[in-house]
């Protein structure tokens, strides 16, 4: 019986997490204000390189969830989750999510020690950003439906094809790419600093300016294979599990912020001579949001904990967190606008920024039809 032991550890961990959360919240309040976000979402690159350098060097965010043997700080998804929740609260425009939750996770999931040793220390130190280029015209993460292919000639690989919806695709230094070979879908890395000329990337017009999506064209682009040929399907599955838990934390943070905005407004806005929050119709809308937010936080944090414990329950918990948080954030972002009424529909009000981010996040890995089936699949239904 280790209940008391677990409790003592949990309390110590909670204190450390609270410190990380407080440090990040202060930093982001100063560096990722609404004004800053609004400026960045209209420009290229879609982030402030100076802020990213500070996040990497002062707060060591990209090092957080990378093992120590690859130059990281060796924390897990629990700590990464705290950072993602805080980033989500303020709609941080940053290469953080793609670099840490997609690119670095693809390298780690490949099991290719050489590639990890070569690239992860640069990622951990903030010297390189990365992303994961999987989806094509249909936006599907199903590796069986990809046309981008790799050919082996003269002792080296090259990629040809088009990837769409690539997060930070115009700026990432390292592109982890899934392409077909004779052995099946395989994982490759393209180092843009070396092969930049053989890759064309352009920003896609998107509903959510705070998350940069790109169209990336490979034309006989030299690439290095990562892990065994034909092994990318498993890598994609693993990355979706991990990245969807990081995304879930970001969604929970955004949903919590929407709830705070609504509750604050409902306390202060007077109509009919009383605060609108005293009307049960408004009160219950806020309570419904609170229920969703509480469930979302619990699902995201519990999935992160199970990941760090290497629990066999993790895949189910990851799928649950993704579904639960996707719905919760969309719901909170929608209702937030309704609680605000007309002012919530203006461009000046930040509510629409959260609505946009909520929808783009919900659909990032395929949307409800895909993530609900994933829950059932993980439960062997």
């Amino acid at each position, binding site marked *: 019986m280790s209940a008391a032991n677990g409790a*003592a550890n949990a309390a110590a961990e909670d204190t450390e997490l609270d410190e990380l959360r407080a440090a990040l919240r202060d930093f982001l309040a100063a560096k990722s204000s609404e004004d800053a976000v609004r400026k960045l979402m209209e420009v290229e690159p879609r982030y402030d390189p100076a802020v990213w350098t500070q996040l990497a060097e002062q707060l060591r965010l990209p090092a957080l969830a990378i093992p120590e043997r690859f130059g990281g700080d060796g924390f897990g998804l629990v700590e990464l989750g705290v950072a993602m929740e805080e980033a989500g609260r303020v709609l941080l425009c940053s290469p953080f999510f793609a670099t840490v939750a997609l690119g670095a996770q693809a390298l780690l999931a490949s099991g290719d020690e050489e590639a990890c040793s070569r690239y992860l220390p640069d990622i951990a130190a903030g010297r390189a950003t990365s992303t994961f280029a999987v989806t094509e015209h249909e936006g599907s993460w199903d590796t069986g439906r990809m046309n981008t292919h790799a050919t082996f000639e003269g002792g080296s690989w090259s990629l040809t094809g088009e990837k769409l919806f690539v997060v930070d695709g115009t700026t990432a230094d390292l592109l982890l790419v899934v392409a077909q070979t004779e052995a099946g879908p395989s994982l490759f890395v393209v180092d843009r600093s070396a092969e930049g000329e053989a890759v064309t990337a352009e920003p896609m017009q998107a509903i959510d300016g705070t998350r940069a999506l790109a169209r990336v064209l490979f034309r006989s682009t030299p690439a290095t294979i990562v892990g065994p040929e034909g092994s990318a399907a498993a890598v994609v599955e693993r990355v979706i599990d991990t990245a969807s838990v990081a995304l879930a934390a970001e969604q929970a943070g955004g949903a919590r912020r929407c709830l705070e905005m609504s*509750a604050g407004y409902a*306390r202060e806005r007077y109509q009919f001579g009383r605060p609108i929050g005293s009307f049960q119709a408004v*009160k*219950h809308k806020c309570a419904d949001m609170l229920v969703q937010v509480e*469930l979302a936080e619990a699902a995201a944090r519990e999935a992160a904990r199970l990941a760090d414990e290497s629990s066999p329950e993790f895949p189910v918990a990851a799928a649950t967190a993704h579904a639960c948080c996707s719905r919760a954030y969309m719901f909170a972002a929608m209702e937030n606008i309704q609680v605000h009424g007309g002012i919530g529909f203006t461009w000046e009000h930040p509510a629409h920024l959260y609505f946009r981010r909520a929808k783009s996040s919900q659909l990032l890995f395929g949307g409800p039809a895909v993530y*609900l089936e994933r*829950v*059932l699949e993980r439960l062997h239904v």
Partner: protein
Amino acid sequence: MEQDVEQDAAEFAARARAFLDAHAEPAPDRGAFTWGEGDDRMAYFSADPPDVDLAKVKQARAWQRIRHENGFGWITGPAQYGGRGLTPVHDLIYDTVESEYDVPDTGMISVVGLGMIGPTILAHAQQSMRDRWLPAMYRGDAIACQLFSEPGAGSDLASVTTRAVREGDGWSITGQKVWTSVAQHSQIGLALARTNPDAPKHRGITAFLVPMDAPGVDIRPLRQMTGGADFNEVFLTDVHVPDENRLGEVDGGWTVALTTLMNERATVGSEGAGPVGAALSPDRLAGLLRATGTIGDGALRARLAELLVDAMATGHLNARALRKLRGGVAPGPEMSVSKLMYGQNLTKAAHLITDVLGLRAVADTGQWGTYAWSEMLLATPALRILGGTEEIMKNILAERVLGLPKEPGIDTRSPFRELRRSGAEASK
């Protein structure tokens, strides 16, 4: 110090295990669920015939006595009343260990009596009543019930109209209580009665312990929509109780009631085993879709997945609250959220399953695991009402957690007798 805590917990668990090994059999291995095998009953309310019901109460009392004699009857209670003086962590440890054993269900003693009334008596009753009832209750000799709700006081509990008037050196109580669980098995009831109709509603109530065998107490079973009778109506007619049975101050009963209600929310929110766990098990739900050939139906799969996501997220919420509690942190809004979700999840499950079964849920074909679900279906409306309706739970969340203002009203300031009430003209 952490080392000491850990060692203490380990030793306590070992003692609990030794006790249970000596007095109970390990719970049978339930193994993996297989469609068509085992008990297919799926009832939330027990609705046992009276003789079965009585036998279960007897077993529960006997088991509670054994627990008590071995120091596990009231783990957190003060030693002077037969308690062990330990922490909620020890309580949790014991529950965890006991769940591995096949022991009688003591819910009819513990949920209301030991879970809600006991802590209220300890906090507010006079010394003679604490001495008399607390040891008896935790030894399994006395069962306690809650005489709170009335036909005219449901969500608005502070509008009770049962009257208590001074009579000699005691009180005479008259009124009607409703939705009283285990009243028919109880020796004592905790009643709220109006002692000052000229005061605002929260400030004119007094709490009393009413012996359930006192002259003037009439207990009648209340048949609920499932067809069974799991609750009672209790009619009180000129029931005399001495002043020593009063809890708290005269007109100070609302404070007493809040102690009881706080313990109720904690209890109701933590439910999750029994028929509930079974109803929401992925294996059972998937088994049903397979058995009915609907496993490939996209619309039903989506409903199933949504339900399982909610059920699992609620489970995560409960697990985190439990870990907080073990670390000595009182759970926050999780319990109210989990209570709301509990009713929602079971309602969705019951409708999904009966929709899948079609007419086999409407009339009994004799097939395993089909018509049995109708009993759960008919119980689900109660789960969105008992322990606080959804509307009240949402008010609590919005007001206490989000700080939204209360609805302005005159009911908390005006004398109670001037308020309009259902079925009664406001009297001047």
